[in-house]
């Protein structure tokens, strides 16, 4: 062909199918085939007659660094601990959805962000190595022989959630709690995967993870030896949320995507795809494995303003207690 460039441009612009594209900014793990990314893409494309394209990377830094230049319609995968910062960028538009279908254990009234799955923070252990797990945080503090692996609140979302959990449950006594934990903490890692990997290699009795972690081992590995210790004081709630960008090239499609996140079809898929609880599905409709896992009675959650107000001082207390 004599005009290859012209032909290429023509071929691109004249392709009739998939006229619209929804660009979704997502954390890196959405880009892998063993995360929820492919199932979400497939599910949404089946109902929208469009193409869903992921832009993956560190979501919050991307939002803050790129600002209005960001070429995306929707952001998915922000954690509840970063919603305040994300909101503060002023880049988001109302999601326009009715939140009545939500089944999360806290009152969720937010016209910017929708939770699409959630979990409870928990200490996970191996039944073959620890046969009587503590049933309360207080008992964990008494059982000083139990060794622990967890994440640094300065670098990890789950570490930060643990810090707020302790702050909420123990208040002024938090400093003593950290000193107690420090004495039998094997180590504190920068991210979740390092400590979970070390726990799997037998480096500690318990690891900071989620109540849903055992589901992976049961389903994918046919191994029911992992369990989460359920505490009487309640467990810290974390959720992953999505929001519509004000600069979306395709606002209608973006809102369709928000509706899809709350749809029964999506909610029935997400538990297995992301090893977490569905955010808009009654518990009796959850997959059997999730439903059968021990479930905490009480949810603890500091809203984003409260968490922001407390975390500076809480970190000082943590640092002081851990390094004394």
């Amino acid at each position: 062909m004599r005009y290859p460039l012209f032909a290429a441009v023509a071929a691109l612009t004249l392709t009739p199918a998939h006229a619209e594209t929804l660009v979704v900014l997502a954390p890196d793990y959405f880009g892998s085939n063993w995360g929820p990314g492919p199932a979400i893409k497939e599910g949404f494309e089946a109902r929208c007659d469009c193409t869903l394209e992921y832009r993956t990377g560190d979501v919050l830094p991307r939002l803050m660094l790129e600002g209005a230049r960001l070429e995306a319609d929707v952001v998915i995968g922000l954690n509840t601990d970063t919603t305040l910062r994300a909101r503060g960028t002023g880049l988001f538009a109302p999601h326009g959805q009715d939140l009545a279908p939500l089944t999360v254990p806290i009152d969720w009234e937010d016209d910017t962000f929708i939770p699409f799955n959630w979990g409870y923070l928990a200490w996970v252990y191996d039944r073959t190595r620890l046969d009587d797990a503590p049933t309360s945080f207080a008992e964990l503090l008494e059982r000083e022989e139990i060794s622990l692996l967890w994440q640094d609140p300065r670098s990890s979302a789950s570490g930060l959630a643990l810090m707020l959990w302790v702050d909420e449950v123990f208040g002024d006594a938090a400093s003593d709690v950290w000193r107690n934990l420090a004495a039998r903490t094997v180590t504190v890692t920068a991210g979740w995967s390092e400590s979970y990997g070390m726990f799997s290699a037998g480096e500690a009795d318990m690891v900071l993870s989620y109540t849903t972690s055992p589901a992976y081992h049961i389903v994918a590995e046919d191994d029911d030896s992992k369990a989460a210790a359920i505490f009487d004081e309640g467990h810290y709630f974390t959720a992953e949320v999505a929001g519509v960008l004000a600069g979306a090239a395709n606002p209608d499609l973006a809102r369709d995507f928000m509706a899809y996140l709350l749809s029964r079809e999506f909610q029935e898929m997400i538990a297995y795809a992301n090893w977490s609880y569905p955010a808009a599905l009654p518990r009796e409709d959850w997959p059997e494995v999730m439903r059968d896992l021990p479930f905490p009675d009480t949810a603890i959650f500091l809203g984003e303003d409260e968490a922001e107000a407390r975390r500076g001082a809480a970190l000082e207390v943590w640092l002081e207690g851990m390094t004394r």
Partner: protein
Amino acid sequence: MTSASRRARLLALGFGGGVATWLVVLNFGALGAVVWRAEGFSALRSADLAAVRFTLVQALWSAALSVALAIPIARALARRQFRGRALLITLMGAPFILPTLVAVLGLLAVFGRSGLINQGLEALGLARFNIFGLHGVVLAHVFYNLPLATRILLQGWAAIPAERFRLAATLGFGPRESFRQLEWPMIRELAPGAFLVIFLICLTSFSVALTMGGGPRATTVELAIFQAFRFDYDMGRAAALALVQFALCASAGVIAWRVALPAAMGGGMDRPVQRFDAGGTGLRLWDGALIVAGALFLLVPLGMLVARGAPHMAGLPPEVWHAAGRSLTVALGATAITLGMTLALAHAVLALGGGRGAMLEWLGLAALAASPLVIGTGLFLLIRPLANPRDFALAITMLVNAGMALPFALRLILPGLRAELATHGRLSDALGLHGLARLRIVTLPRLRRPLGFAAGLTAALSMGDLGVIMLFAEREGATLPMQLYRLMNAYRQDDAAGAALVLLGASLALFVVFDRWGRGRAGT
């Protein structure tokens, strides 16, 4: 000076200047962009000072121990010939090219709570020991850097001309005299540089220091930078901390530079070295013990990684292999760029000479002091107004990796080039040998060994690099370390172990191919 040699000098300065510009952008431009975006620096806190103190203490211990242990091990390896020696030297270099996350898992399989040693102690009814703490940080850093120090010193031993040892034998030198007259001057020349490089590597350690340090007592400056970015959203403090890190590195550099002695050795004919001073049985046993101890320390953790990953390699998902291919491309590209940049910079350093040459040399080492997080963020800020970084994520990764590997390559190649100039410079000039012809006929053959080693190191290091690509990469651009991380984050520990082994194997293979090429014709 003839016009041809003047042209060669201008060429060297021109290419060297281009490389220097990129290094300035990479090291200072990125930091400048962060400062500009933050609208200035913010004040440090008392916890930051504690981080500075811990960073210094662990880096000093790690560098000192790595070099102190490398001297006897390299010496033993240098004066012994045995079957499998070349393979052993290659394998012992492996820990340095491992991604840190993988190296830590290998170490814990030996030294951890349920590692080999503690299992042995328990079986004997003895108390278990705890690896986490300052000693754990130092152990991990020595595990990681001892191979580098050993290899740098081994190069030094190999560079002592065979004629010297022959002369020493004629003069009746025993091991002690040989050491004082031949080996110690070489150590004085190379050890400070090795110490400096390792000190700088340990200075910017973050995840390993935290994990092996057992908690927030082991907070390094790099972690404080991370915290400033991600917890406090305070770019000004991140920039201030990055400057502190730079200052620490620069002071270390000045001290090391003052301690190092210039080479005072004449040239030789590149004959195979024959050691006349290594005869005694006691000495032979001592060397053997040193080599075995070093090999055990470095190779058992690697063996544990192999044993853990091997059963899961065959069943790895195809994405892992695709990512391995992509990483291979990045590694080879970065290697070509690094070698080109290093040769250009080294020629320019020597062409300039004196203080200005030394400044250029320091610029080449500066990337070691830079915070990867600051570089990534800064480059993003610099590039974003011009283009979308994701469109050429792999190219950026190659260039950044090249900048990060350049300090090592420069350290390895510059002394060789300097020696080449001293021994063959005048002869080449007299023969009118300049430019590419001289590079091909005189320089490259004589630099083959450090070039091969530098190429192997660069390729292996960029194979395992996770650094800046995280901020740029998109779904399709995942490298092998990224896939490894994704597997770990998706609970797939077995697949992750298999992928880690692929990474280890690929890094080592790259390293071996280049390093073997470098050592191809040498008789030692």
